[in-house]
């Protein structure tokens, strides 16, 4: 028996004047399968929807086509009408005869309108229902990292009732927080105590992730700790693998912030200067200090802030003469402009140049040769201490995890892909998030905001232990699937896994939770084994076949 299709036309209050609705009705009524054609003037309002609902029930309509305005703002409303009438909301197709037809062209557009309706009818005829399903999700969260962001996130996640595991590769938590902690005055040790005292937080140190399988709500993570492998399930994974710094000096080998073996300790990192400032028994207070930043890396918000804070501290504590060499001060963070003005008022001299200064170090002094833009002259400054430019770099952990979890990074190697739709904290895989320095920025306000954002996201996903999803909207047919792995490799959301169906057969399984209904897999499957309900090949081609047909 032919599927009964009901077509509901709307003339938008009579405002659509370049479509002959009577003629259209006649033509549409003749389309095979169309058992009723209704004309309304206000389908989107209560009166119109009620009439539609009664008609669907009275005429036993099985598929609904609405020819009216754009589905963009109305599709979900009409789907609800279907549900209220006892029909699955997916058995619905819309023809845009207003924005993309009546409003788009001058003159009579009845012919095009009828074609658009035929296209929608052809599609509707083939539509199948999609039910909703409730899936359980694991409520535990894995936070990879043990620094400022990781610890903060774990504490907040615990507060909202989610059991969290901190996975840190070093032997202790807080290993990498030094610089941030000093500069922002955050008390890492009290945070670590809070974590250790929290029943809801499990701390695994000297531990690394070796493999992860699964998807959001159901990740199986293998962890190597103390030579043993353990496996645990988590609902979401938060990466907080931090950053590392490298002094941007023309030196071989490249120097880390902790190395002191540079010209007798006259060239230091910001962190080292912080420690010097805190050292009550410092041998010799530097009389002239030079700071350098922003030449090798445009992303210098943190170096700007660190320089300003340290310069002010050094002025206050030692009364040193301070010269700052940079290209541009990066003041696009809260309060930074204020600090910049304060520093200048205190006598800190800023020397801006396009090209980086030349550094030579000898006899306990460092010479900086630069051209000052304001003076227009070359100058050589001899100072006791140079705080060198530091590059912010991703950690080795960031790279390793990126390939373990199959997630993209940006062009500098930090998380995440530079796709604006992922900001602030998402990855392209549902259930995997990034916070803090591993995203490439160290502005405290932004880092704290990231942490709060991840807490609500993860909480929203996992707290109830259940998520309602469309059941099998995109499905790989096990009969047709040849396990070529193409869809698995191609899915941008990591939503497809290979599962064993019996002793000799493995097929692709698309997770209802992780799938984002893009259809890239359906297009690429060489065996045409993937059925994407609403956008199957047949449903798309059926629309094409309606174009230009008599």
């Amino acid at each position, binding site marked *: 028996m032919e599927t009964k299709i009901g077509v509901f036309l709307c003339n938008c209050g009579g405002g659509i004047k370049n479509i002959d609705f009577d003629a259209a009705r006649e033509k549409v009524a003749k389309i095979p399968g169309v058992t009723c054609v209704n004309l309304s003037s206000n389908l989107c309002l209560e009166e119109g929807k009620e009439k539609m609902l009664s008609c669907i029930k009275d005429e036993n309509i099985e598929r609904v086509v609405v020819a009216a305005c754009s589905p963009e703002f109305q599709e979900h409303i009409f789907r609800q009408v279907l549900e209220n009438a006892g029909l699955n909301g997916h058995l619905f197709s819309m023809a845009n005869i207003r924005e993309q037809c009546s409003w788009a062209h001058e003159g009579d557009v009845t012919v095009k309108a009828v074609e658009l309706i035929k296209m929608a009818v052809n599609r509707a005829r083939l539509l199948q229902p999609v039910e909703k399903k409730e899936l359980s999700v694991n409520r535990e969260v894995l936070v990879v990292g043990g620094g400022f962001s990781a610890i903060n996130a774990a504490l907040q996640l615990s507060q909202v009732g989610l059991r969290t595991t901190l996975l840190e590769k070093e032997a202790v938590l807080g290993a990498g927080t030094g610089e941030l902690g000093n500069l922002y005055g955050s008390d890492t040790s009290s945070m670590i105590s809070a974590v250790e005292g929290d029943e809801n937080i499990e701390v695994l140190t000297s531990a690394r992730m070796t493999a992860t399988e699964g998807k959001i709500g159901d990740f199986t993570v293998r962890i190597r700790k103390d030579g043993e492998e353990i496996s645990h399930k988590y609902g979401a994974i938060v990466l907080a693998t931090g950053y590392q710094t490298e002094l941007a000096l023309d030196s071989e080998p490249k120097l880390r912030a902790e190395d002191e073996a540079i010209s007798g300790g006259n060239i230091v990192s910001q962190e080292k200067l912080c420690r010097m400032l805190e050292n009550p028994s410092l041998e010799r207070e530097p009389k002239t200090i030079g700071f350098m930043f922003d030449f090798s890396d445009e992303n210098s918000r943190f170096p700007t802030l660190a320089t300003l804070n340290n310069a002010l501290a050094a002025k206050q504590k030692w009364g040193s003469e301070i010269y700052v060499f940079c290209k541009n001060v990066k003041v696009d963070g809260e309060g930074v402009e204020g600090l910049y003005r304060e520093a200048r008022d205190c006598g800190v001299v800023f020397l801006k140049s396009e090209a980086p200064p030349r550094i030579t170090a000898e006899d306990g002094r460092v010479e900086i040769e630069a051209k000052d833009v304001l003076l227009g002259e070359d100058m050589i400054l001899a100072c006791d201490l140079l705080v060198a430019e530091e590059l912010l770099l991703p950690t080795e952990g960031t790279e390793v995890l990126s390939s373990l979890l199959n997630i993209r990074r940006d062009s500098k190697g930090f998380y995440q892909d530079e796709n604006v739709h992922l900001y602030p904290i998402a990855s392209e895989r549902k259930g995997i998030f990034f916070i803090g320095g591993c995203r490439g920025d160290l502005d405290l306000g932004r880092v704290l905001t990231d942490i709060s954002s991840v807490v609500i996201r993860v909480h929203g996903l996992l707290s109830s232990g259940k998520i309602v999803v469309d059941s099998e909207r995109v499905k790989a047919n096990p009969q047709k699937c040849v396990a070529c792995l193409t869809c698995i490799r191609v899915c941008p959301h990591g939503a497809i896994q290979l599962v064993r169906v019996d002793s000799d057969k493995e097929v692709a399984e698309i997770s209802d939770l992780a799938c984002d209904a893009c259809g890239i897999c359906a297009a690429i499957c060489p065996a045409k084994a993937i059925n994407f309900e609403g956008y199957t090949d047949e449903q798309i081609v059926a629309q094409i076949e309606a174009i*230009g047909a008599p």
Partner: protein
Amino acid sequence: MSKEIVAFCCEHSAYPAADLAGKLRLDCPENLRVIRVPCAGRVDVIHILKAFERGATAVLVLGCEDGACRHITGNTRAKERAKYSEMLLKEVGMDNRTVDMLNLAPNEPHKFVRAANKITKRIKESEEAR
């Protein structure tokens, strides 16, 4: 079908752009037929070829701007498939069939209309040349 341009429009970018073009009453060619897809990456070579089999004169595949695809790689795949389809058509001697890929944002109605008009003009010119 004879003079139609079949436009596969991604629901995140091109489809809203086409709606905006309508709201602005921009002058759009009447022979445009829009097929809405969840991502340009859903569009397969077979869909493009089917359009030509049924008589379309041109196919336009529209997706998000390069680097802004909601599904990360969808628009890139679509671009490759569009190029591949055009190459296939040339191989079988259908040189005057064009497959274009357009990247746009949902709030770029002018870009949508400009592309549609450009293709229509090109079709007209090649017809007159014959």
